[in-house]
């Protein structure tokens, strides 16, 4: 890893391979470190991204440089999980928004998911429905 970090006095140049870390991940990590350090982005987003960091007063540049790579891994994992759960999160939100207006529910996939969530299956029929006892007396 040391070959990816070059430190001189209170400055560091981090060399990041964009094939390993998504550009959005690098942006997120960069944003996080703006309050601890001064940062300039340079390089080629397709070949090698250079993150030039200067530590703010009282901050350790070596620690910042290593932490930056940790955050790249952290955000990469977050992005991967966010991508893999995007569909279900969208459906949950869609359901939450449609709860008060059933007329909005049109999507077949949403209907299927609703049935799954309610524990219903395609075979269930009206006979399975629970009828309130008051109705029997009428």
């Amino acid at each position, binding site marked *: 890893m040391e070959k990816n970090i070059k430190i001189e006095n209170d400055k560091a140049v981090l060399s990041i391979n964009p094939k390993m870390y998504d550009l959005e991940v690098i*942006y997120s990590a*960069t*944003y996080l470190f*703006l309050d601890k350090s*001064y*940062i*300039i*982005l*340079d*390089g*080629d*987003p397709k070949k090698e991204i250079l993150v030039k960091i*200067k530590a703010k007063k009282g901050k350790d540049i070596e620690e910042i440089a290593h932490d930056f790579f940790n955050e790249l891994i952290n955000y990469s994992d977050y992005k991967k999980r966010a991508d893999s759960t995007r569909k279900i999160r969208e459906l949950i939100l869609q359901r939450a928004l449609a709860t008060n207006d059933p007329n909005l529910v049109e999507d077949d996939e949403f209907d299927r998911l609703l049935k799954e969530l309610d524990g219903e299956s395609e075979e269930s029929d009206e006979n399975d429905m629970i009828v309130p006892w008051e109705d029997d007396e009428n």
Partner: protein
Amino acid sequence: MKISFNKNFYSKKAIETAIKDFNEFIISFNQEDFNLNIEFNEEVFDEFCNYVLGLSLNDR
């Protein structure tokens, strides 16, 4: 001080906005696209660069 912002990461709008916002610290400047030659009356160059980067990231 001279700086050439990498156009792959910075937006021209962010550079122009930062120049406006740092107006009171700027003695003179000359901007050509992403190339900037700027002189400050205080040592705010690093803060200026961070500000441009922050704005560029926000624009995305």
